[in-house]
């Protein structure tokens, strides 16, 4: 493994680790809200990737990476709001947030 000691590598590895942890959380937990937490972690890992490439890439004065990250933050907030609204409404209807119990559309 001829890994150059590059600061960018460190950030990308941290982002990959956070993404994997978020994915594991979203796929293995029962509670719907914890799945949403996992999704937020994945989005954050992607933002870290964007900012790291913006900083260490060519032409940072074009601000492409930072703009993308800012829009991603805004969109993630909107998606969290709607997703959590959905979870609350489902709980009101089925009195549970257990994803395994909500595996059918009937009800």
């Amino acid at each position, binding site marked *: *493994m001829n890994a150059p*000691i*590059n*600061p*960018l*590598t*460190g*950030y990308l*590895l*941290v982002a*990959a680790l*956070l*993404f*994997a*942890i978020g*994915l*594991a*959380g979203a*796929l*293995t*937990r*029962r*509670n719907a*809200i*914890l799945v949403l*937490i996992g999704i*937020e*972690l994945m989005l*954050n890992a992607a*933002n*870290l990737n964007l*900012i790291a490439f*913006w*900083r*260490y*890439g*060519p032409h*940072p*004065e074009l*601000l492409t990476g*930072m*703009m993308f990250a*800012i*829009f991603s*933050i*805004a*969109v993630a*907030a*909107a998606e*969290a*709001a*709607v997703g*959590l*609204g959905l*979870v*609350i409404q489902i*709980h009101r209807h089925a009195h549970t*947030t257990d*994803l*395994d119990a909500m595996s059918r559309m009937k009800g």
Partner: protein
Amino acid sequence: MSIVFYVIAGLSVAGALAAVLLKNTVHCALALTLAFAGLALLFLELDAQFAGFAQILVYIGAVAILVVFAILLTRGSETPQDTVLSRNPLVGLVTAAAIFAVLGWAVLHSSLSLPQESAKPQVTVMDIGNALMGRYVLPLEIVALLLTAALIGAVIVAMHEKEAAK
């Protein structure tokens, strides 16, 4: 790689691990807040001050509180009867490990021809403002529309239904 990077990265990863592993849902939400804070510090370390402060303002100041409210409103803070893991946790873990392996391999073996320590970008908030109103005005307006739609949508989805049938 400086010691500051290792400390902050360790903090973020620890927060993320705690957020997906803990039993009590509210503790998970608070650990998620720690992960967000660690990420905001990483952004500041990368000289992206606006993104770092926006991350704190939006994620810790709004999304974390949303998550916590949702946990409280769905009685998630009571201890669950069965296990906290779903029926087939192994599939999820294997998938996540595989994805991490692929990404890690890609990062370590790619020929990163990017300059190593490029000069610190001199980015002022005025540049960001000019960019938002100049080159990125269309995404800005679309995101504004999206946020309005999300606001109205979230309110409609989570509203109490009035008793229609009497």
